[in-house]
């Protein structure tokens, strides 16, 4: 085989990408040809340099980069959804305005039947636009909304939310919710009173949710407050693997674990000596008929000024988590990530 033909395949030979028959021919040629052997060695050296440089760089982002990565990604995703909704809405609005103006202008200049058709078309577009305006979210500060609030299992935290929900200016933090936007049905209140529940948690249901329409408002749920369980005892009480890091960054220590009565759920209380936070873990698809499809995205309850608690909820395949504390969202998000990483870490063991 001539050198030129060999050289075209030297890279693939070096990378082990040639079938054995062709590789053998090249080996034979290399044994006799110093020029092609040098070419191969030079390729090998280039690869070494490339790998060495890559290792030296190791593509290091700033140290705190990964801490905020997922939160930034979610924020960006959310932003895109809002922009897209606004874009479609704006486009439809312009179409409607244009069509209507067009119809009115031309109706005097064309045959009556055609003019009527144009007007009907314009009105149909308008109706479509009105019906398909994007649902506003808490991020947009919708002024007039239908709202729900959430029963958070533990009395003091429930009180915290209920305090917030009795604010004198309930409209300011309202969230416009349709049925599909409500998740966690056994925690929602006020749905039996014409969608006039109190202000509360910003929730999302999955798209195409199988959300039960004829649901009842939840009964309150108690925690066995007197019974602090060891991790082993708590683990025996539920079927899912409890995620219970002893320390949550920066300085929250696990103080106690309690079982939630009547549910396959536990409450973990963490403290840094000054403030506490609660982490609730509940099985998805458990006997209590919570299905993973009932959960979607992060749930965030944002406290208003002077109000007592923030909350973040999320689910991880088998377990739903709810983290509640007086801390600001930024440290809570950090804790959320720590818990998630702990969850994935244990899953991968």
């Amino acid at each position: 085989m001539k050198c030129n033909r060999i050289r075209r395949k030297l890279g693939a030979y070096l990378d082990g990408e040639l079938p054995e028959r062709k590789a053998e021919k090249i080996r034979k040629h290399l044994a006799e040809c110093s020029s092609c052997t040098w070419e191969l060695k030079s390729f090998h050296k280039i690869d070494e340099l490339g790998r060495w440089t890559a290792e030296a760089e190791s593509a290091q982002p700033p140290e705190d980069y990964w801490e905020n990565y997922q939160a930034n990604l979610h924020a960006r995703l959310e932003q895109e959804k809002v922009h897209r909704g606004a874009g479609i809405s704006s486009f439809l609005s312009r179409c409607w305005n244009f069509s209507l103006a067009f119809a009115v202008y031309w109706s005097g200049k064309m045959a009556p039947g055609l003019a009527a058709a144009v007007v009907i078309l314009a009105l149909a577009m308008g109706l479509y636009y009105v019906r398909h305006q994007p649902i506003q979210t808490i991020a947009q500060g919708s002024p007039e909304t239908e709202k729900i609030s959430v029963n958070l299992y533990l009395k003091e935290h429930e009180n915290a939310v209920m305090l917030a929900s009795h604010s004198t200016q309930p409209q300011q933090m309202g969230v416009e919710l349709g049925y599909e936007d409500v998740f966690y049905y056994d925690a929602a209140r006020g749905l039996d009173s014409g969608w006039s529940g109190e202000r509360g948690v910003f929730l999302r249901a999955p798209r195409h949710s199988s959300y039960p329409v004829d649901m009842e408002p939840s009964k309150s749920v108690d925690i066995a407050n007197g019974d602090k369980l060891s991790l082993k005892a708590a683990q025996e009480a539920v079927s899912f693997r409890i995620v219970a890091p002893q320390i949550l960054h920066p300085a929250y220590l696990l103080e106690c674990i309690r079982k939630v009565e009547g549910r396959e759920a536990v409450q973990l209380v963490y403290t840094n000596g000054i403030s506490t936070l609660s982490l609730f873990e509940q099985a998805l698809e458990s006997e209590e008929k919570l299905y993973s499809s009932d959960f979607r995205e992060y749930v965030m309850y944002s406290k208003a000024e002077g109000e007592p608690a923030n909350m973040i909820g999320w689910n991880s395949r088998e377990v739903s988590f709810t983290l509640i504390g007086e801390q600001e969202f930024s440290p809570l998000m950090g804790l959320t990530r720590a818990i998630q990483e702990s969850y994935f870490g244990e899953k991968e063991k």
Partner: protein
Amino acid sequence: MESDILLIRERQIADIADFDRIVYLHRKQIYQLAYRLIGNHEDADDISQEVFIRAYKSIRKFKGKSKLSTWLHRITVNLCINHLKKKSRHGCESTDEKTLDMQVYSLGSDRTKTPLDNVEAEELTRQVKEAVESLPVAEKVVFVLRVHQELSYKEIAWAIDCPIGTVMSRLNRARRRLRDKLKDYII
């Protein structure tokens, strides 16, 4: 791979927790690929996030015929190629000096090397990086995917949507160009 496909097929990323998991598992690899193709942190950050956003939006198009990671590579490569083309049209430098300084510093801080070794290593790193940066985009992509990311020819062909023969010839050309630019370190 199997777990990836199961993860996707079960609920087609229907809930954000699965999406989070995918991001968590692949984010570093995707960031590194973007970084090596683009050469600076800001753009690599932007592109890596864009990759996951696109993946989230078009996850239903993922049929499980390739590894999820390869699919993410494909999105990354496409975004990086577009970015590089756009940059070259605007005549911008693709290497960020600050980033390069940071990398050289990280290499230079290796305590097992003498100061002289470190200076030489810094220089070599700079030269190699500049040589890779100077490759035509198509060759650079193939070189990075093969040598840095260690993808097979088949995976590269799928990622950049071209025949395996093209991968082979581009890689050969890239290696020859690099050899010519770095000849002082080859002989």
